[in-house]
């Protein structure tokens, strides 16, 4: 089966690779274009029809089924460079995207056609630009409370990310596109829980994003933030650099003392 998949992937790649250039006119064409890209770049792990590829060990897979994950999941995974993965693993690191926007849209359209799932959010879903200054402040405060209740456990109170079991990690949320934060909540990528619109309503999601963006804009009043990782990095800095340099300075003071060869003249 795997061999067949590989053979077909290679064959289809040879047959359809110039297809990226053509302009998708209709939804059907877009889906077809996405299917071709999918067969080349994704099907070795996710199956020729996005049904996933199971391993012999029960309950595990090389790539999960994509039926019903929706366009939002594709847009998040591919546009943040997580997919295609360099190798199968439970941690998909963020990297430079492999596909351009047009190709991602086509693949998203194809995966969305496999089964109903969350669509890619539009800008009015996550933007606070239309709000007055006061409403925006309220949104940031409310978003902060929601973030601290639902997200901080893994992503740190500052959105700096944190460690997860078995060598995994929750990624930093700094510098992540608003749309991608929204899609991550919507779809629950990799080991992350889902925060669907029934769980955290769209407006609350927008507030969480407004809060995260306000963190990025906030000047560091306290000086060096040390990555905002909390007491570990701060304690390490205080003990090693702070107290270490004080000890070094004390040693330097005690070791350097000018002495004269002259004898004291008693008055």
């Amino acid at each position, binding site marked *: 089966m795997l061999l067949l998949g590989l053979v077909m992937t290679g064959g289809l790649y040879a047959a359809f690779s110039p297809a990226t250039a053509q302009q998708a006119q209709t939804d059907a064409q877009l889906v077809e274009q996405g299917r071709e890209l999918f067969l080349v770049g994704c099907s070795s792990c996710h199956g020729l029809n996005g049904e996933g590829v199971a391993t012999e060990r029960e309950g595990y897979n090389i790539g999960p089924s994509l039926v019903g994950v929706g366009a939002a999941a594709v847009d998040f995974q591919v546009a943040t460079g997580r997919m295609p993965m360099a190798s199968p693993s439970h941690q998909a690191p963020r990297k430079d995207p492999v596909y351009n926007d047009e190709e991602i849209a086509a693949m998203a359209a194809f995966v969305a056609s496999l089964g109903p799932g969350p669509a890619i959010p539009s800008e009015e879903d996550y933007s606070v630009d239309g709000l007055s200054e006061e409403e925006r402040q309220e949104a940031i405060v409310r978003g902060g409370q929601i973030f601290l*209740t*639902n997200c901080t456990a893994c992503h740190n109170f500052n959105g700096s990310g944190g460690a997860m079991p078995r060598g995994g990690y929750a990624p930093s949320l700094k510098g992540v596109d608003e749309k991608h934060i929204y899609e991550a909540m919507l779809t629950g990528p990799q080991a992350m829980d*889902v925060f669907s619109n029934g769980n955290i309503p769209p407006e609350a999601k927008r507030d969480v994003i407004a809060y995260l963006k306000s963190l990025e804009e906030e000047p560091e009043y306290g000086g060096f933030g040390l990555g905002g990782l909390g007491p570990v990095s701060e304690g390490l800095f205080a003990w090693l650099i702070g107290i270490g340099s004080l000890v070094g300075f004390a040693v330097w003071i005690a070791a350097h003392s000018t002495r004269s060869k*002259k004898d004291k003249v008693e008055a």
Partner: protein
Amino acid sequence: MTHNDPNLPAVEGDPIADPGLPAHEWRPTDVDERAERRAERQVATFFGLSVVFAILFVVAYFTFEVGEDADTLGGFGASTVALGGTLGLALLLIGIGIIQWARKLMADHEMVEYRHPAASSEEDREATLAALDAGLQESGIGRRPLVRNSLLGAVGALGLPAVVLLRDLGPLPWSDDVVDPENGGGLEHTLWKQGERVVRDVLGTPIRPSDLEIGDLVNAQPAAIFELDENGHHVLEGAPLQVAKSKASVILLRMEPDDITHGRGRENWTVDGIVGYSKICTHVGCPISLNERTTHHLLCPCHQSTFDLADSARVVFGPAARALPQLPLAVDDEGFLIAQSDFTEPVGPSYWERG
């Protein structure tokens, strides 16, 4: 070297001759009067500069507004840098001045201090023991057990007034006058009761099972946390609110119903694959919602206790001794999630009386 101390063994002359201390070398300030005066001026300059920076601190305090010009000076803010810099330099210059003073001007003669045994002399010790013994003999405490025992009784009875007086330092948290099971008082009760709606934390909105998708994790509270009185004020506020939340916080996770291994007698505690557990770790009570959707393992970040949410939240790793208490869930007439009852066991870490 010889000594006169009777407590130490006699020394039969030193096997190696004591080389003594090396000849003392004086500092330039000890031998040169001009250097001494120069050092004096240096120290005074440091102290004087400290005064200048202390005054500059006051000036900066009134010149720059706190939080203003946050983009100046590398994004730290003019006020922050000016206040920190001037006060830091004022303190540092006092320190440098004192060290300079000690190193250049304070007395520079070397001293030798010999160690002596810490114990008292033999005579003193004997005299003290004799005095103690005489006291015991004269008081007759060994010969008069009636006096001795009644004294012990009197001193022991003094503990009773102390107990009575200090009793109100704190009623036991589970004693009758504190526990109000109806309103979730005490260690064994929370705000959850039969029919209590499960609402989203922060938002306070009730939840329908159909709102949630497979893999949805909800941080939830009992509706009573967000209850308003007739004037629109929160019924629970301040410390009572925190106490109530710290016991009643739950997490809901919706998973494939087939993945769930129901505990004995808990077969009807879930709704459409939605399970509810206390959010308070049973080890030392950290709130936990660090869940891996793919493994449904909930990890406590404090000490890495890990609970399997598909299997009655049993402990799969870490120091926690008990599974997270499970909240029995049901749906009310309007289709919202409710609790069937309070938790069937106390939430949070173990305590003495819990057994």
